[in-house]
């Protein structure tokens, strides 16, 4: 007898539906699983047999072969347990109807269902393929239910699933959880005293998605400034939020960030992070790294120069393409990674340049350090700004600044202005400084200033483009149609590239 059930696996962020076929033949009792499986799936034999028996069903004492199709797609993890159990039970008994239903859950020996990682991307894929129902462990129900057009059936025991398929036990479909956003996490900008330049740079970074380098002595508040950035970013569109949640689902991190959250993520990996932890990778099928967890949010690298150079080099491709492709011998996967990079560094090796304490580094050390900070990703940093140590009096007597919500309002209208401009097809294709400058409506005086700056500051072509982009964002924040001289001058001041 032969029967099948639908399961699912993931490659990168894309789900791949898997047909689980079970064949029960006469012969000595035997149980084999084939179809490019990993160790966890091989171990499913023991889990599934025990779960079926402890669920009160009879395990067929015959020759059982389970095939996971398509056979050439590598598969891993324990999410196939339930589909295997259903396929085997169906092969042994008629009356179990699993048409239009997919199964993703791990089985415990006592026949209860356990949650697995990656249910959200799987649910998205199954819904897109026209699957009507998805059975998952009840802990996975909330994330799966975020997908439109899919009836998610949460279950706690194998018996309940089988009873339901026999048409004897109705299961209430899960509903997406209520929006549980507690508002922006992290400090509010109003809590930060002084730091006018850094606040301004954060606003520009939030409005234009520009990468930012904060430099300042230890304890000056670089980390606090970086943590305040998410509070300036507008809520994500529901589609974008779902994509972000899918990445968290893959890593099993939805406890940290609720699946229905619309807030942009903030990730701050420590500099001891491994390369694959940062950009993605790991054994077997590649997992998303910190840069993908920061997708559509903020990636904060504190103590930038403590990160190994190879890690920073690996950031170049994602910073350019907003995605990272990890190529393995068995499969190449791509994860989205569109984030605002905020890096923090001490201004010099001793950390006290420009500080009242005084700095003991000589010019050569400073230059070497500067090269080390920004060498690998210098040409990806759009804004560089100092975060000086605050004087004691300012910390207490200083006036309160603007609240994050006020700045976020400006950021939102600047972003609207930008998306209106990007809708114009000519604007989207401009790449060279002169084409960009035309499409940005740069004023003649501003162009002259830019030309002079090329001579004096020795800007590279890429540097010109970055200055122009930042200036356009500054004009967007001001609500200006064209880019004026002041916007160019301000952008020049923040440029990450130092005069040689």
């Amino acid at each position, binding site marked *: 007898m032969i029967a099948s059930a639908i399961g699912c696996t993931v490659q990168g962020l894309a789900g791949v539906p898997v047909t689980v076929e079970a064949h029960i033949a006469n012969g000595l009792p035997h149980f084999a699983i084939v179809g490019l499986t990993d160790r966890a799936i091989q171990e499913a034999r023991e889990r599934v047999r025990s779960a079926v028996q402890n669920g009160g069903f009879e395990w067929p004492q015959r020759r059982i072969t389970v095939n996971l199709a398509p056979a050439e797609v590598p598969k891993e993890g324990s999410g196939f347990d339930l589909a295997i159990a259903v396929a085997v039970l169906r092969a042994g008994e008629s009356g179990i109807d699993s048409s239009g239903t997919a199964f993703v859950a791990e089985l415990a020996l006592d026949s209860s269902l356990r949650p697995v990682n990656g249910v959200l991307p799987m649910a998205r894929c199954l819904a897109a393929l026209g699957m009507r129902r998805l059975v998952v462990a009840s802990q996975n129900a909330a994330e799966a239910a975020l997908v439109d057009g899919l009836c998610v059936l949460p279950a706690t025991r194998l018996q309940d699933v089988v009873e339901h398929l026999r048409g004897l036990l109705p299961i209430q479909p899960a509903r997406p959880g209520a929006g549980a956003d507690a508002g922006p996490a992290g400090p509010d900008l109003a809590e930060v005293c*002084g*730091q*006018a*330049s850094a*606040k*301004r740079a954060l606003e520009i970074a939030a409005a234009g998605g520009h990468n930012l380098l904060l*430099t*300042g002595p230890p304890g000056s508040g670089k980390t606090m400034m970086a943590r305040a950035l998410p509070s300036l970013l507008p809520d994500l569109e529901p589609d974008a939020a779902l994509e972000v949640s899918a990445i968290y689902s893959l890593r099993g991190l939805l406890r940290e960030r609720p699946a229905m959250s619309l807030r942009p993520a903030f990730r701050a990996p420590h500099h001891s992070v491994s390369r694959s932890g940062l950009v993605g990778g790991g054994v077997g099928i590649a997992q998303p790294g910190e840069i993908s967890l920061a997708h559509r949010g903020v990636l904060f690298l504190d103590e930038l120069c403590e990160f190994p150079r190879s890690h920073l080099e690996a950031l170049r491709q994602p910073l350019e393409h907003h995605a990272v492709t990890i190529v393995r011998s068995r499969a190449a996967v791509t994860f989205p990674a569109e984030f605002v990079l905020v890096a923090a560094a001490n*201004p*010099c090796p001793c950390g006290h*340049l*420009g500080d009242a304490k*005084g700095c003991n580094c*000589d*010019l*050569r050390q*400073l*230059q070497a*350090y*500067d090269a080390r900070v920004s060498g690998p990703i210098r040409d990806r940093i759009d804004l*560089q*700004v*100092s*975060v*000086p140590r605050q004087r004691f009096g300012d910390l207490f007597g200083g006036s309160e600044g603007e609240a994050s919500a006020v700045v976020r309002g400006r950021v939102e209208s600047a972003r609207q202005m930008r998306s209106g401009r990007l809708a114009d097809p000519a604007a989207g294709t401009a790449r060279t400084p002169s084409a960009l400058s035309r499409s940005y409506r740069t004023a003649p005086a501003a162009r002259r*200033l830019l030309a*002079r*700056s090329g001579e*004096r*500051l020795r800007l590279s072509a890429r540097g010109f483009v970055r200055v122009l982009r930042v200036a356009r964002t*500054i004009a967007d924040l001001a609500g200006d149609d064209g880019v004026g*001289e*002041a*916007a*160019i*001058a*301000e*952008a*020049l*001041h*923040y440029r990450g590239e*130092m*005069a040689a």
Partner: protein
Amino acid sequence: MSGGPRQVSPGSPEWPERLSHLDHPPQELWVRGPVLPGARSVAVVGSRRATPAGLSIARELGGLLGEAGVNVISGLARGVDGAAHLGALDAGGPTTAVLGCGIDVCYPRQHAPLSERIAGSGCILTEEPPGTQPFKANFPKRNRIIAALVAAVVVVEGTERSGALSTARWAADLGREVLAVPGSIRSPQSRGTNLLIRDGARPYLGPEDLVQAVPGLAATGAGPAGGPSLAGLRRPLLEILERMGPTPVYPDELGQALALPAPLVAARLGELEVAGAVLSLPGGLVARTF
């Protein structure tokens, strides 16, 4: 004249007469390029870790002397020395580098291109035999040669323990004119020059202060040239510039002092940078260049 090193001994027509003013003159010199007679020579020396303003002054002074055809003598070190040589070369004037290492040893390494330029149109000399590494002890010895060769020494910047001060002391002992560029009493890089002034050095406030020391300088009527100019800067830009000194500051401090919002300060600093009046430094600090 070939650029290859050659040996010059006392008694040779090339031997600089002024070295005999030293109690212990060098036994011999290794030289690249023609040795220039000493009467119209000025040493411009100072800190390796100069401020942007110091570098700018040194370069301007080098250019000024170069234009007047005065030989600019310095030590090829980083900072003030290099800037002075560069200013002289750019003005098409003669310049002489006195090394503390062998003629075939390039120190500091990043000044290799500069040293080639000097060898091409000026002179490099040392008393150390070829192959000598730049040992610490060589530099005070080198400084006495600089002091002996010139009519006057201008110390642009230097801390209390700067080698430039040793050059000034040698010069004073030999009866050469010593000038020092005064600076803020808060700036460690001006501590040495301010001390020199207290001890009787002539303050250098502009080229006119050099005229007495260097015969022939006045004839050219050279004024400060080539450096950035304040003319043409708008009033709001000057307002910021007035608040800045050679000591680097944070833009936020300027904003606070002038009660200006950060975007405005940033825009004005950007414009000043393009005008060459302000330099932005590693760490986000800004400094005035003159």
